Structure formats: C-alpha cells, structure tokens
C-alpha cells in the first residue's frame, strides 16, 4: 500500500520546478479551496479564475514557503479566502490578507446598500450556501491595496494544522453552538469580507452591537479551538 506524501514534501518538489508536484497538490486541495471560493464569489467563472490565481501564486512563492516550513494547506486556504474577498470587493489581486474596508462613505452610497439594509437578517440567512446573494462591489468604491506578501513566518506549522484537521468535526460542532446573531456576523466576515460597520448595516443593527457580535464570535471560536486542540492559553 503506498503512503500519501506529506504536502510539505510535495511543496519541496514543487519549489524545484516539479510541475507534477503542483498537480498533486492541486488534486489534493483544489476541492477544499474551490468550495471556499464558490461560497464567497457569485459566479463559477470568477471562482475558477481565483482558484487558478491562488495556485499560480503557490507556484511562484513555493520556494520561500518551503524554506520556512509553514503549512502549505493553511497558506492555500487563507490566501484563497483573501483573494476571493478582494475579488468580491472589486479589488485587484493583492495578497492573502483581505484588505480592510477604508472608505465607509462609499459603502453607504453603494447602489445596493439600502436594499441590503432593508433585507436585514433575511439577506444574511441567504448567504448560507447561496453565494449569489453577495454581489461584487464596484471597483470605484475601493482603495487599491498595497501588495501584501504573506510572510511564511506567519503560517502555523503542519502539525498544528493536522491537529485541526483531526478534530475538525468537533470544532465545527462547537462553532455551530454560537448564538445566531454571532454566527451571522461571523459568516458575513468570513464569507462576505464585511467589516463590523458593514455587518451592522446588513443585519439592520447598530454598529456597536454588530461589532460586539463579531468580536464575541471570534473570541468564542478562538477559545474553543484552544480547548479542543490542547493549546489553551492563560490569557483568557
């Protein structure tokens, strides 16, 4: 029985210009990455472009990634999410950290802003499994982000990601225990790339309440992850 090569071994091969290794990484992780991208972007065409963009960047950045020893699958998922969110916002490709929204006045003036507000929670609800609910933003409303290479030193180690993968069902079960408003706020941030202010607008809630919901959700998940993965820290 042949044993599957660890992804980091494939990354090392890919860093030495091995096209077949890139193909193996793609076969292994494209469904996971594409599933995330299609939840964020409204059309398959845009999702396919972003998928390809992410793997092309993996190819070009593979050498630095392999030298640092970080998790390649974490890089793929985080980079894919950020690239898809930037595409949703109408921004040019920037980097794996989704750009913060910088011009709130333009958000309010966006053509579909009032309609989204009126729909409130119903619009949020429709996000689940229906990425078409999220319309691409007009490019004119967004600031062009600086190029933001994701330092490989920011990546968790492969063993830390393996721990998450092994306990994924348990972790998602914990996330599903979030109170509904917090869960909606988190979904809007993760899959819609929304800021606290935008989440308030979409959920029809005051800014402060929306921001508190989002922060509470993030804190809840962070602490659950620490507990489930055995890395509970003292600063809670």
């Amino acid at each position, binding site marked *: 029985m042949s044993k599957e090569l660890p992804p980091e071994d494939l990354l090392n091969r890919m860093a030495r210009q091995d096209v077949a290794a890139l193909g193996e990484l793609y076969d292994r992780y494209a469904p996971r990455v594409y599933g995330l991208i299609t939840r964020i972007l409204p059309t398959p065409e845009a999702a396919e472009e972003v998928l*390809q963009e992410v793997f092309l960047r993996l190819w070009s950045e593979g050498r630095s990634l392999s030298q640092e020893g970080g998790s390649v699958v974490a890089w793929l998922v985080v980079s894919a999410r950020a690239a898809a969110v930037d595409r949703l916002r109408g921004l040019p490709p920037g980097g794996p950290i989704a750009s913060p929204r910088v011009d709130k006045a333009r958000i309010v003036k966006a053509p579909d802003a009032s309609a989204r507000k009126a729909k409130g929670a119903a619009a949020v609800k429709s996000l689940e499994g229906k990425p078409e609910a999220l319309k691409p933003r007009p490019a004119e409303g967004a600031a062009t982000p600086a190029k933001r290479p994701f330092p490989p030193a920011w990546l*968790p180690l492969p063993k*830390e990601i393996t721990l*998450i993968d092994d306990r994924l069902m348990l972790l998602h079960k914990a*996330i599903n225990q979030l109170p509904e408003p917090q869960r909606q706020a988190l979904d809007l941030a*993760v899959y819609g790339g929304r800021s606290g202010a935008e989440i308030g607008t979409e959920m029809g809630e005051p800014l402060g309440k929306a921001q508190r919901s*989002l922060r509470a959700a*993030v804190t809840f998940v962070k602490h659950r992850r620490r507990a489930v993965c055995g890395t509970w820290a003292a600063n809670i």
Partner: protein
Amino acid sequence: MGCQHLEELHELWLLGALSEQSSRDLREHLARGCPHCLARVREATEMVYLLGLGSKPARPHPRVKAQLLNKVSHKTAPHG
C-alpha cells in the same frame, strides 16, 4: 509600546474586518518584530483556516487544472 490593546484584533485583522487605523497599528507593531504578536498571528491563521473549512468541498472543472499546468509548464520550459 505594548500590545495589550491589540490582543483581540489578530483574527479580525486577518479577516479584513478591522478599520484601516487599527490595521495600520497592528501592521506597524508586527513590523517591529513582536514575538507575542507573531505567535498570535500564527494562531489567528489557524482560526481563519478552520473557519474557511466550514464550506463544503467542490470539484472544479478539469479545464482549470489543465490551464494551470499549461501556464506553469510554459513558464518553466527552457528557452531556445
């Protein structure tokens, strides 16, 4: 400058949900090499990974892989 005021922001920053000012504060702090915040960013990356896996896997059209490998092969092909 300490970083207690940044403690709860690393995940929001990676999600792109922070204001521009808070993002700038965190970026500048990280650029100064704070080991605590570096560890927190790694932890935040784990969390974004975890949240990103909340969507169901989907199989892209085979054409996407073919195009990808074709582009990469052209980049690596010896010239001349």
